[in-house]
């Protein structure tokens, strides 16, 4: 599992997060919409997983462990966060 719920309810993305992880992540977010996503240990993020994060409007605990995402995507993510 590279997407898991930690003891304190944080949704942790670890290592390589391939396309298959999009659905479990979405289910967890549907179950607990307020859950915090921690992607600091994610080494590589698939577009589908990123889309779930973007669509849910959550602001993950940063920086993203995937350096390319951290450099190019993260600031934009903060801007598109709804509800602010």
């Amino acid at each position, binding site marked *: 599992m590279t997407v898991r719920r930690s003891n304190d309810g944080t949704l942790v993305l670890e290592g390589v997060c391939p*396309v298959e992880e999009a659905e479990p*992540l979405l289910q967890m977010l549907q179950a607990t919409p307020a859950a915090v996503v921690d992607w600091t240990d994610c080494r590589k993020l698939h*577009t589908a997983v990123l*889309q*779930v994060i*973007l*669509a849910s409007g959550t602001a993950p605990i940063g920086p993203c462990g995937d350096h*390319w995402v951290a450099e190019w995507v993260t600031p*934009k993510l903060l801007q598109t966060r709804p509800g602010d």
Partner: protein
Amino acid sequence: MSALQEQFVSEARELIRQAADDLIALERAGASPERIDRVFRSFHTLKGSAGVVELPAMSIMLHAAEDLLASVKQAAVGVSADIIDSSLACLDQVSRWVDDFEASGALPARAGEEGRAMADRLRSFLPAGQEPQTKLHTQNSAPGGSEAALPEWVSHLLEDERDAMASRMPTHPLAASAICYEPIAGCFYNGDDPLQLMRQVPNLLAFRVEPREPFPPVPDLDPYACNLRLLAISAADRDEIAGIFRLVPDQVRITNLSPNALPTTLALANNNRTLIEAVIEAQCELLRVSNRKDDFAGCVGAAARTAANALRHGDYPQLADKVQRGGGMALAQHDTGVLLAALQQALVALRNARSTVIVDDINGPGGTAANTPERPADRVLRVSETRIDALVNLVGELVVAKNALAHSAKRVDQALGGQEIAGSIQRDYDAIDRLVIELHSTILQLRMMPVAQVFRSFPRLVRDVSQQLDKNVALMTRGGTTEADKTIVDRLFEPLVHLVRNAVDHGIESSEQRRLAGKPETATISIEAFRLGDRFLVEVTDDGRGIDPAVVRRKASEKHLLPTDELNALTDENVIDLVFDAGFSTAAEVSDISGRGIGMDVVRTAVEQIGGRVSLETKAGVGTAVRLDLPLTIAMSRIMVVETSGQLFGISMDAVSETVRVAPDRISQIKNNDGFVLHDRIVPIVSLAELMKLPEQVKEATAARLFVVIEAAGRMAAFEIDAIRDRLDVVLKPMQGLLAGARGYAGTTLLGNGQVLLVLDVKEILP
């Protein structure tokens, strides 16, 4: 509001001030290329910030202003008062919107219209036929002129990402391309990972990912339907990029950009560096020539701050940190040389950066920063006022608790005869006392801020008012680095506005009159702040016509401010003071600017509210000087409000040891005074009503009586009162005027309902 938006609000305000200052400097001091560039930079950064928080109306307007300033910069348009006016009006609009944005998180509904109207007004100054600058770029960049202009998405991307691109720009980009990649919904099933393709794009300058259609609510989201648009700008040529996207040619649009489409960014990056270098060099120069021993910390602090801010502004945070550390060390070692070395190093790094553009770090050859063990940086922390105030309150309570400890020490000594323990408690008390006093003053220091922040608004004010009245006025401000408590600095603004407006409106003569009087046509108003002991003084001086005592006398008599005989008895000096009276105005006619008969009155009230005094000196034909004498800090006193015979009095909480109700049978006559026993001590009773010469209320003989037990100057007494009304933190004002000599009062304060409360000086009234 998100952290990003909060940051935008505070930065935008700073930038607006900066831009306004620069515009006024531009007008007053002439249009040198450096000044124009500075104004341009301010607007440019402001526009960038507006883009980040997505306020298109603001961006449109600022974009137009930036285009106008770019033409000024290229000398296509000369600087005129109209251009300055419109640019200032644009800043005013931005400022209003920033307020709206802070209050409601959005711009008002008609912002779009207003923004476009302002943009049109600004563009009307552009020479006919000249296209806005950015459009020029997009046209230049169309390959072979086959397209009239770039697609809108490219312009937007270029525009929005301009700042980000500037920092990533290679020195000589040979090519540039814009990529718009819209993966089909089912792309994930095909095994595509759109991000993976983007990761392969070489020389990426800007990237953005956005939903093609607004995302549905989370429960309805299909995680495997791609709904994204990926936009990017790269300094690679079209063919190279097309190779990466060869499997999805139907989903991607690649537009060739001429590298010239990006020149401003690179030019700006270089310009930016030139500016930063100039700023740092100026600081070095200042440090070298400054031999002010009295304000060493101020000079070093200001130089380090200015240089670091410039570096941070230019996106060299590491250099900025090093400079700031250098400043901290210079302060600690009391040696400007340390900061000078750090500044020189930053200059070297900046100059090296010309060839490499991106600076990661610097460690100049043999530089001191590399050899000196690093100390924690002397960084500035932004802390909200409420948190500081919470600390101030806590320390206040600590002071009260500390006072109780002294009381306990005495009780141990007296009640138990435990001299040894009492002595040890007393020593502890002394230590805590010292620490608390130090803590208190350190925390109050946190609230100190330079008065320059208030001064900054005045060049603009003087400009607008003098223009409106067609007068020539130069403003000089001095002592901007003088620090005082934030509350005082904040509250200084209003009285200063009145004073400066009054000076321009009433004090300064028309150019014609000045010429006839043999004075320079341009009048001077100066605002100067300085410290005198523990007082903070601000003087507003003008070289205008001065105030004629005869006119004041006539006005006062017309307005029946005083009975005629009293008025006649006043000396000329005292007559002048009448201008501070409510309802007095020397202007022959009420004008738009001031002179509604409230100005000077408001000044006096505002200044007195913060425990200050106003005085005025004037000489007919020579000018007027108004001096505001203010405390450096607002000394808050904690008081208890008590009532006796229907009158309220304040008693400092420091003097109160406790309040007790005592049954009449516990009260006995001791010698020729009533008293009672409390904690094994005899406490004499003092009737506050009697002490204050008030008629005593008749009380039921059996009712318990209420006392405030006072301990001051080693004596103890119980003040009999009717009721305790309140406990308050107040600013104590010393007794003034006729009451200045009245004994027994520590001062007065205003209650919430406007009533004046007399605060007793218990030391003096204890019999």
